């Protein structure tokens, strides 16, 4: 697992590929109940991160996260830009001075997700990316408590992300742009939840099992 910053180029490639592959369908989701820019926003961030992948992969994990956070914050824009910036910067703070392990990672991730909740004044059930990130954070904590083996953790993380993403379909959005459409949002998966799931599963796929 300490391979994280070294594996960063592979991770960002996997994220890039999965977002590209799903760009049309995700854009349709954001057009249906948002403004249609979510994929473009993320892709601006991915491009900026790829341009710095060498630099980032040479850092320790806390600094790498800080760097990823600043780049995300400055390149993505929109709601998701500030949220991903907040996620990684808060994770970096928690990681500072810690050895990377399942335990420290789970803790840092949980702190990052808490920061996102505060930034977005949002919680579970509001039809946002949090409906993926919150259960995934819980799943990591749980796995750590249970000393689950890494391959199994990764499988669980991806399954949890999938479930979380699917769960947004029947929700009525109460945060973000989609909230303006009220009941009209029911029946549509949230775009930010969908990309969160896609990116989590893509990253999981490049980690050594």
């Amino acid at each position, binding site marked *: 697992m300490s391979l994280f910053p070294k594996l960063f180029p592979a991770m960002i490639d996997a994220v890039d590929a999965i977002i590209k592959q799903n760009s049309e369908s995700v854009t349709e989701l954001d057009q249906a109940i948002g403004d*249609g820019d979510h994929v473009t926003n993320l892709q601006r961030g991915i491009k900026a991160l790829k341009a710095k992948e060498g630099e980032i992969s040479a850092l320790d994990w806390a600094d790498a996260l800080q760097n990823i956070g600043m780049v995300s914050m400055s390149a993505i824009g929109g709601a998701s830009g500030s949220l991903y910036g907040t996620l990684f910067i808060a994770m970096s703070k928690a990681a500072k001075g810690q050895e990377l392990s399942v335990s420290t990672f789970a803790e840092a991730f949980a702190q990052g997700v808490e920061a996102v909740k505060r930034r977005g004044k949002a919680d579970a059930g509001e039809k946002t990316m949090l409906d993926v990130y919150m259960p995934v954070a819980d799943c990591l904590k749980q796995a750590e408590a249970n000393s689950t083996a890494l391959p199994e953790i990764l499988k669980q993380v991806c399954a949890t992300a999938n479930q979380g993403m699917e769960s947004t379909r029947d929700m009525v959005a109460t945060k973000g742009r989609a909230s303006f459409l009220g009941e009209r949002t029911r029946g549509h998966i949230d775009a930010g939840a969908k990309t969160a799931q896609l990116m989590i599963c893509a990253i999981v796929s490049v980690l050594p099992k």
Partner: protein
Amino acid sequence: MKKFINSVDTLLNESLSGFAMAHADIVRFNEEPHFISRQAPTQSGKVALISGGGSGHEPLHSGFVGHGMLDAACPGQIFTSPTPNQMMAAAQAVENGGGVLFIVKNYAGDVMNFEMAAEMIDCSNATVFVNDDVSLPKNHSTGRRGVAGTLIVEKVVGAAAENGKDLAACKAIGERVNEATASMGVAMTSCTVPALGKPTFILNDDEIEMGVGIHGERGRETIPIKSATEIVEQLSTAIEEELKPKKNQPALLHINGFGATPLIELHLIYNLAAQFWQKRGVDIRRSLVGNYTTSLDMAGCSITLSLLDEDLLKLWDAPVHTAALRWGM
């Protein structure tokens, strides 16, 4: 999609450069990161007004940078909030000893990105949130959106800042104007975001979309098309329920086009809206009709009523010299 562009990626940059060239007497353009600021230096100690938001609403906000209004505008990508580093760089460039007042339309992305910037800059700063869109209930989970009323806040606070009011006073005036302002919009068509290349949604030829924001998105409900008089009644009634103007209340009536609706129709809407308010004893003292807060090439318009007392009217009338609003100089 047919647009005058070279490539979707360079559109914003090419357009902002063009804007700054066409108005080189008023503004300058900082390319990395993007912001537009005044050409002329300001009085030392003046509160610096910074607004911003996604692009695609031109002339908002860049068209309102200049004497008597904004000190800087931070344009994001099209319909995408700007990033905190833009606001930080703009603040550094225009802060002049009086602190920075951010004027932010209430959208999740704008609010969060401006908030991050406010946390990171080291000069004194404050924020006014604009939430004039009454198509949403007041207790909406995210609060209401900021729409065409924003320019009224920017104009009035801009005059106050020019007059030497301090940060707290400017913020208070901004909040007072925001409280006194209500808007509601209706769309005939959506718009085409260049990066997507097709309209965000399609309305039938006999349908209109009531209660829309300014991002070409769907609104509160799709209804059958009605006469201009009926549309004005519906929009104005929602505003009336919010503001409950008193008899003889002085007010500013602003008809805002979303981009593709011709002036001939906007003036017709103005006529009907002015009649609506006159019947209720409201004293329409100032008017503004045109495309000021747009959604690219969306057809449609919004009605904004702003209850301005004599003091605020004076600030509205104060000299302004920006690309899109100019008088008294």
